């Protein structure tokens, strides 16, 4: 299966670990040069080395995508070093517990800033050049919670829903220039973010992290398992490819049937009752 993207240049934000790193490696395996951003310099250096090991150019930039000035600096550095950006995977993100009425304006602003505004800022800088190139792929990280909310992360749910809506606006306005914009909506992917979420729930419920992870996999996926980050990375590579050239404005679920199968908001209730 030739994805047809050899020689393209990709930017993966939050590409130093988890799903971002998996996607960066999949794109590198396809022959793309890959720039990654992240906050942890040790992780960045390790990821850069792995990408280079696949025989392509890699560029790791320490940057906090919550800060507009750092986004601009990072994007400028990529244009200077690699000349272009064909594929943009807006992946950086984080979350912490939030109920519908229990969080501050600052909490809400932080979630919208890292999930929605980071996409807006990278797109502002990169989309005009994609239009000139008449080719581009934008993949924005949403979540299954962007389609149906999960309990305990209200501001994250809302920010991820906004990412889908923003992606559809991008598709509506710029698809005619050969730019496909899609959102990706993972479910239970075994990354640090889920471990942290599981730890918080476990503490509340007097259970272990593994209890929570097992219960969630059993309850919140039709396939009864977590995905490995690379299972999302491969979908990102597909969406970046020529094979997906007639898909735009979509929210692609990579959730093991979570939304088809069950009410995801029930995870924590079910664990509590166990």
């Amino acid at each position, binding site marked *: 299966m030739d994805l047809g993207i050899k020689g393209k240049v990709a930017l993966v934000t939050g590409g130093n670990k988890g799903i971002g790193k998996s996607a960066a490696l*999949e794109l590198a395996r396809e022959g793309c040069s890959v720039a990654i951003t992240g906050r942890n310099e040790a992780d960045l250096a390790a990821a850069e080395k792995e990408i280079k090991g696949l025989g392509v150019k890699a560029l790791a930039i320490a940057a906090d995508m919550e800060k507009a000035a750092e986004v601009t600096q990072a994007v400028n550095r990529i244009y200077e070093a690699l000349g272009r950006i064909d594929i943009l995977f807006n992946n950086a993100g984080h979350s912490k517990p939030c109920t519908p009425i229990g969080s501050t304006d600052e909490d809400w602003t932080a979630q919208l800033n890292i999930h929605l505004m980071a996409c807006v800022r990278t797109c502002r800088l990169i989309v005009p050049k994609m239009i000139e190139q008449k080719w581009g792929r934008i993949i924005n990280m949403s979540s299954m919670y962007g389609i149906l909310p999960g309990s305990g992360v209200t501001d994250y749910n809302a920010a991820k829903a906004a990412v889908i809506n923003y992606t559809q606006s991008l598709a509506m306005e710029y*698809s005619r220039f050969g730019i496909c914009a899609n959102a990706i909506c993972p479910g239970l992917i075994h990354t640090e973010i889920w471990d942290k979420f599981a730890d918080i729930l476990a503490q509340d419920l007097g259970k272990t992290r593994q209890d929570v992870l097992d219960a969630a996999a059993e309850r919140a*996926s039709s396939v009864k398992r977590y995905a490995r980050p690379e299972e999302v990375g491969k979908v990102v590579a597909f969406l970046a490819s020529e*094979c*997906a050239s007639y898909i735009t*404005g979509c929210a692609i679920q990579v959730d*093991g049937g979570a939304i*088809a199968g069950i009410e995801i908001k029930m995870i924590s209730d079910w664990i509590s009752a166990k």
Partner: protein
Amino acid sequence: MKISFDNKNILVTGGARGLGEACARKLSKAGGSVAIADIDFDAACAAACRIKRAQAYRCDFGEPADIVKLHQQIRDDTQTGIDILINNAGIISYTKGLKGFDLEEWNRLIDVNLRGAFWTCREFAEDMQAKHYGKIINLSSMAARIGGIDVGIHYTVSKAGIIGLTRDLAKKLGPFGINVNAVAPGIMLTEPVKRHVAGREDDYISKIPLGRLGQPEDVANVILFLSSPLSDYITGCVLDVNGGMYMG
């Protein structure tokens, strides 16, 4: 990316022409052995001659007994049964208003497009359950998402039913290692659609954000993805392949 369908048996229903043939060709090129089942056996044979590692079968997907027979034949021929099922057989019907078709036409279309798809899953899921591996891809349509553009209401209803079928099967078959997804194509230039849109192409294109009508290849690529290990954690989903006409 090294994706190989070596040693995989793939059934493409309605595979003699159009989208079905494009899928059969693509999956065969990636190493798969393809069973092409179609009501038009001569056309299925002709397609099987054009495609490597392909075998033609006759089947009327509006007749459950035919589907059961097809399953037996394929099991006899392959020994291990089917690994990947592309449920593509269907009838397209253009709109004739609410009363422009009779009960017989309604029943025939629903029987082929919806009951036929389910009966095929019902039969061939057995092969997959035994191996704890399988991929089912059902063909829905953009009509199911936004209401039909030019197509008959019975067609729209049948394709909306495919989405419910897909989600329900994803739940029931997920624990057996079987992924079930649907693809919802927009306006794809197969022969009947080409005839239908002839002379009005620009009208349609003006409504498509990507600025072009779809090709069978566009859908075949997505079906290849859903048939492959690239999509192992995707199940119960509907992938819209429509150039941005409907954003789901």
